């Protein structure tokens, strides 16, 4: 029982953190057709900026300003970098962001050093909130849950209740139409890229101190975010949400399964003495997203809720 409760709670929180990252990526992808390889690098920037701002002022300032800073950096990257490459097609754009990820990593290492920085949970939130089945539950985790849900609601309101949201929604389903509506497309692109990066930055602010803020956090988080977006369906926010939660739960639950392949497939003669037979589900947990990714792309290339194939 306790396994289920904990896995559920942890899975949802992890899933929501993934969604924060993947929502920005999805927004950018659906508006611009760019799969931003550097997205996790903006997440890292968020954590580092938050560290600097927290040092100078307080965590609560960082919570607001660090994502804005990241958004501005993102907008700058779009304006002076990505826009130039746009004419050369999507592969060029993908490669540009691939190089950008490289560059951001290296710059961070020079500016902040290669070791982890001391970016920590604010003291006001650094206490165990409740104890469940003998294990304490940190308050900051629940705070993360709240921030993630607040962001989810804000995003939903923005998309469904405002004019800007309508334009974005139109662009999700009819990417070629927006230009005909008389909107300033470069401006929209820049804004969307900036906002998408800011969302990643926010994830960095609340995730960086919970996990570790070091120059490798981007490479750590990067691939999994793509997996979420592809599984959810490129360009579908709902899909990204479902996939994030699904992956969060899948990974946390798999960890608690001790069964090995030999236990599962013993009936077809797989012995626990073989190399394959010894592998346990828990051991495999972090690999499951990639397995799921490959599977989904075969079976349902549009992803869970994607509207269009690439």
């Amino acid at each position, binding site marked *: 029982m306790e396994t289920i409760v904990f896995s559920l709670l942890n899975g949802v929180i992890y899933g929501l953190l993934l969604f924060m990252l993947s929502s920005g990526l999805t927004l950018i992808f659906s508006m611009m057709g760019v799969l931003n390889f550097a997205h996790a690098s903006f997440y890292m920037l968020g954590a580092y900026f938050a560290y600097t701002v927290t040092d100078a002022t307080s965590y609560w300032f960082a919570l607001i300003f660090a994502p804005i800073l990241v958004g501005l950096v993102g907008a700058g990257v779009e304006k002076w970098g990505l826009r130039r490459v746009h004419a050369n097609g999507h592969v060029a754009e993908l490669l540009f962001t691939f190089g950008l990820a490289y560059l951001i990593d290296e710059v961070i290492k020079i500016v902040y050093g290669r070791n982890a920085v*001391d970016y920590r949970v604010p003291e006001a939130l650094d206490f165990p909130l409740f104890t469940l089945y003998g294990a304490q*539950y940190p308050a900051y985790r629940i705070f993360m849950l709240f921030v993630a849900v607040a962001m989810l609601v804000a995003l939903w309101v923005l998309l469904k209740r405002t004019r800007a949201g309508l334009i974005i929604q139109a662009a999700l389903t009819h990417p070629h139409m927006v230009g005909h509506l008389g909107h300033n497309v470069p401006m929209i692109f820049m804004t969307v890229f900036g906002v998408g990066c800011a969302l990643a930055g926010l994830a960095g602010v609340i995730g960086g101190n919970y996990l570790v803020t070091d120059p490798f956090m981007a490479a750590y*988080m990067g691939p999994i975010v793509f997996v979420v977006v592809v599984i959810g369906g490129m360009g579908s926010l709902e899909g990204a949400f479902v996939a994030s939660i699904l992956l969060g739960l899948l990974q946390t639950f798999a960890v*608690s399964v001790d069964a090995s392949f030999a236990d599962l497939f013993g009936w077809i003669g797989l012995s626990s003495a073989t190399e394959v037979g010894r592998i346990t589900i828990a*051991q495999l*947990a972090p690999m499951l997203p990639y397995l799921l990714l490959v599977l989904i792309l075969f079976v349902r290339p549009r992803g869970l809720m994607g509207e269009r194939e690439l």
Partner: protein
Amino acid sequence: MKLIASAALAAAMSFVALGASADTLKVAFIDPLSGPMGPSGESGLKHFMFAAEELNADGGVNGAQVEVVGFDNKVNPKESLVQLQKAIDQGIRYVVQGNGSSVASALIDAIEKHNKRNPGEEVLFLNYAAVDPAFTNEKCSFWHFRFDSDADMKMEAVTDWVAAHPDIKSVYIIGQDYSFGKAVAAAAVRMLEVKAPEVKIVGNELHPLAKVKDFTPYVQKIINSGADAIITGNWGSDMVLLVKAAIDAGWDKPILTYYGGSTGAATAMGEAAVGKVKQVSEVVVNYPSSPEQEERIAKFEEKYPENNYYYHRAFNLMHFLDAAAEKAGSNDPVKVAFAMEGMEMDGAYGHLTMRKDNHQILQDLFVGTFSANPPRGVEGLPLGWMAEDKDHIAAAATSMETTCKMDRPEM
């Protein structure tokens, strides 16, 4: 392309010109100096450079000034071999390396082959941190000397410590899913059975290397198992994230690590880890030692304020090299190697012996505890490592049988 080729040639020539002269003894430091493992390598390089200065101030090795030259291998075995070739071409005959057993293994093989194929140009490999037990057992080589205690020896220390703490009735073993993590787990199981049969192993878990972002589910499993201690060989982010997740979940029992003291870990773990995280190592800077050693630590940290005194074995290694060369009366690697076999020396933290049968150093070990407000903090924090006498494990207790059958060259 021609331009590039000629530039390459020019660069290559300049290396030849730089070749070793009689009054310098060059040591190639082949370790990561960029990329994810860069900080570890850099820290190691600083220790070796400092140790070289120490020797030089004392008249060098047989009168030759020691120079440590860094080569960036990006923790990649293949790149290491390219860098090894570069070092050999610069006339360097001594190679020092530590990060990554894969690299060490590749270097042992390559140096063995090089020495066989190029008699008269032998190269000696002094290993300061690669701890796979194989290197001094089935894979042992005459050209390889290890100055760190191997994974099994460290586990001897850890299990001795566990056996000496009767309040620990059960342990949970968690590690990275690759050869090192598996070796640590196997050694823990094997040794606990002998030393403390009453201690139950309530979990033995492997997770993929550097892929887990959130350790909370693992920690919940550990807590639910009712374990009294965690034993882990994890390093890097896998170690830090595991510790952080455990502490956040209210874990307040020992976490016995191999690499809790590695660069950057203290900052990442923070105060919450105080009293819980333990590390097995050959040095605890806050453990009382000689005034010379105290001075050495102080000077090192003054010279490199960004780094902490961590690789004591770098000093052991350099002093063994110095002593062996003097004993042999020559800086020739073959003679130095023979001289180093069976050599003994008094170190800052106990007596040191280089075993002749497998080229493994025997040294005292400590199970240090991450503590608040130690005399010497790490990473600029009021946190650091402390050990008491009961945490001190004598060298003899870590000595192990070896399966090494060494081929020695003709003297």
